[in-house]
């Protein structure tokens, strides 16, 4: 496999590297190399870290909601899944859309699959999905107050249901990322009847989709149970009769559950097993299949340029120089020294993240931990004794490795004279207020919600964006971001995206961070599965099956 993934020889052989690419009408199916006929039936069991905040995809960014919805809902296009897709790459394939054409820089016409039916549950009761559903969903997406994912589609001017199975999107301006953005795991197609009946989509009863499984039951603190959608629009799929997401907030318990064979996948987010636990997992689970790759998730540092002293570039550089990424990633049970430094676009975007050695000289220095240099920079900024600030962090859900990351970071900042007073905030409030700018001094969180690289600079640095908590309003940067969006030629766009990352590093407009090279693991009896980044856990299981 490529340099970007650490697929084991065993997993390559068993999942079939020579995967046959089937017609673009559905996910990748089992490969000839496996010479095995997929088996119907069984239940996929995996652990998740927390209960959903609620079930309305237009009211949250959070993975605790989006992951459970990925088993139930569909979207027009999706990120392709299966053994033929290397982790860290995100090719697009049709989902509810059968095909599409781009008739101009700003016009896209999608032909929907015919005969797609909603789950046979009230209040939708299995009626056929039509273009009006697409129009309704995205108009709600764009008009509902407080949708944190609005930037995904905010450049859309109008959506028209041309006929029962044709939808036309007209954009306000060209956007080369449009299809990637439509494949986001926030663009699920929802039913008007559910919103009308329940007022919103927060209640579990309102979860009615067109996806591979139907949400049967949610037992808070226990599990989410799904059953197979017998009318799924890809005939014969999904293979598994049911899915169970076991809600387990304790990492030791999650690991024990998996080692004891009560779940089929690695116990952490994205089916990962912590590197510390990997040897015992391999010992206990003969034939364990694994893939090593860099995940999206990484630290996120928030501060406001308008709040002294963060407007001073020397202070921002000092923050970076005081951060010891190597110590963080060598200490965590999750990484045990396996990590990749991230520029503005996470390294998990193999095609779009600039290698650190291609940054400018000042940008490269950000990744060189040096307490003395940090102190010197602070002194030059008129802060010879450093400064004090508050640092907000999420109190729950992210787990002990995140807590360690926060503590190590604060310790190293303190050594350079930056005294962070830690203020822990309830996860729900953190994800809905702190990261949107409701903090005094700084925050330390996680990023990694989006499967399109543009989000990592568009949402964070474009003036007017809710996540631009830094308050960046730099005409040069804004113009570069606009230019790349108008550039359909991929190599040219990539150069602009690299330039943006060089510029952001030069200006030290983000806290330096890195991502773990995680080890996703799945049991030997799980076939035709390949993990990847992003919330679409359900999508990656559609064509997987259980050989038990």
């Amino acid at each position: 496999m490529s340099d970007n993934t650490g697929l084991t020889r065993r997993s390559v052989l068993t999942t079939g590297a020579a995967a046959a690419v089937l017609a673009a009408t559905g996910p990748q199916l089992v490969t000839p190399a496996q010479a095995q006929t997929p088996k119907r039936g069984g239940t996929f069991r995996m652990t998740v870290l927390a209960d959903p905040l609620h079930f309305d995809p237009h009211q949250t960014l959070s993975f605790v909601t989006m992951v459970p919805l990925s088993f139930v809902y569909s979207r027009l296009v999706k990120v392709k899944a299966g053994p033929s897709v290397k982790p860290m790459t995100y090719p697009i394939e049709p989902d509810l859309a059968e095909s599409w054409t781009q008739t101009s820089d700003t016009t896209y016409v999608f032909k929907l699959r015919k005969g797609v039916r909603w789950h046979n549950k009230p209040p939708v009761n299995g009626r056929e999905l039509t273009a009006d559903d697409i129009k309704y969903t995205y108009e709600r997406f764009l008009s509902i107050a407080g949708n944190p994912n609005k930037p995904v589609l905010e450049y859309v001017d109008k959506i028209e249901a041309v006929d029962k199975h044709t939808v036309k999107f007209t954009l306000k301006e060209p956007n080369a990322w449009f299809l990637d953005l439509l494949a986001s795991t926030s663009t699920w197609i929802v039913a008007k009847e559910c919103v009308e009946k329940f007022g919103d989509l927060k209640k579990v009863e309102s979860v009615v989709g067109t996806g591979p499984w139907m949400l049967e039951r949610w037992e808070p603190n226990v599990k989410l149970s799904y059953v197979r959608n017998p009318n799924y629009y890809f005939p014969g799929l999904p293979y598994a009769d049911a899915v169970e997401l076991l809600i387990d907030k304790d990492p030791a318990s999650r690991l024990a559950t998996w080692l004891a064979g009560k779940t089929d996948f690695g116990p952490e987010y994205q089916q990962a097993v912590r590197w510390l636990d990997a040897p015992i997992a391999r010992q206990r689970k003969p034939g364990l299949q694994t893939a090593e790759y860099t995940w999206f998730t990484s630290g996120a540092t928030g501060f406001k340029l308008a709040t002294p002293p963060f407007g001073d570039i020397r202070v921002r550089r000092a923050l970076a120089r005081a951060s010891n990424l190597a110590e963080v990633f060598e200490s965590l049970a999750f990484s045990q020294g396996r990590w990749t430094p991230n520029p503005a676009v996470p390294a998990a975007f193999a095609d779009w993240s600039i290698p650190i050695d291609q940054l400018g000289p000042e940008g490269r220095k950000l990744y060189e931990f040096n307490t003395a240099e940090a102190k010197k920079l602070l002194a030059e900024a008129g802060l010879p004794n450093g400064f004090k600030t508050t640092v907000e962090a999420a109190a729950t859900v992210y787990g002990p490795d995140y807590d360690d990351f926060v503590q190590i970071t604060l310790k190293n900042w303190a050594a350079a004279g930056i005294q962070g007073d830690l203020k822990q905030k309830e996860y729900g409030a953190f994800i809905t207020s702190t990261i949107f700018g409701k903090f005094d001094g700084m925050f330390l969180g996680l990023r990694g919600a989006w499967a399109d690289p543009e989000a990592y600079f568009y949402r964070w640095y474009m003036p007017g964006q809710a996540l631009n908590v830094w308050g960046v309003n730099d005409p040069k940067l804004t113009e570069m971001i606009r230019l790349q969006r108008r550039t359909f030629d991929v190599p040219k766009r990539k150069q602009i995206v690299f330039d943006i990352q060089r510029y952001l590093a030069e200006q030290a407009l983000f806290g330096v961070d890195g991502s773990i090279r995680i080890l996703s693991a799945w049991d030997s009896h799980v076939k035709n599965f390949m993990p990847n980044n992003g919330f679409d856990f359900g999508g990656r299981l559609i064509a997987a099956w259980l050989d038990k």
Partner: protein
Amino acid sequence: MRAYVLRRLVVAVPSLLIASLIVFTLPRLIPGDVVQLMLEEKAYGKDLEDLRAKLGLNRPIPVQYVDWLGAVVRGNLGESLWTRQPVLSELARRLPVSAALGALALAVAIVIGVPIGVIAAVRQDGVLDFFARSLAVLGLSVPAFVMAILVTLLPAIWWGWTPRTQFVPFATSPAAFVLQLVLPAVILGITSAAGIMRLTRGMLLEVLRHDYVRTAWAKGLREREVVLKHALKNAVIPVITVLGLQVAAIAGGAVVIEWVFGIPGMGQFLVDAIVQRDYPVIQGINLMIVVIIVASNLLVDLTYAFLDPRIRY
């Protein structure tokens, strides 16, 4: 006896009233405004004042307290601020789970603690006594949550087996329901058992030196009769006092044990409610815990009277 019971019941009323005031006030002292949280997180209202009014949190706290207490007396613990579900119905679902866990843990504490304490006292300074005291120190030293994690994880690593199961409600299978609580109850009960064992041993040693026990020996009674019939009955009165206190300790320990074993009882419910500043839920759960503790202490008092008819406070 009836007068004694009535007196104890009357004394319990002010205890409950004072506890209700504390239960109502303390959650409001936790830093963080639930209205702010709700507005930010789920856009429940137009603005802070609108939402505060919707939730009835704009009235003076004494008025809120009197309203709440009046509703409690009528059997209404209010609604969760977040889910709008009645607290009582949530408690009705979760309380039996926690109560079963707590009762089992207490049973474990008694079954382990009292006999070992008796044996240790009777074989004072012998091998059994040494062994029992060492076990007690170990039981007191290792926190329940550490034990829970080790018991969950180590068998999985060594033998590919874990006691952690998917929770089975009582209605689905009463046997499976009880079975899944046994191990958490043992872990929860061990710390209490250690304390009970030490106290039983100490009290029994003291009682065994009393004149009436010496008389019993002199009469030629068998050891079994002297210890169990004459000495133990008097020795366990302080132990029973401690049992009442152990109910509170077990209720506290259950929060973490429920977390590790994935038991959807009141412990997890309480942690979530505290994090979300869900006042009615925090009040409801704490009030329920207070009622249980007051009731168990009442039971302890009544047991005194049964064990020693001279006791009439």
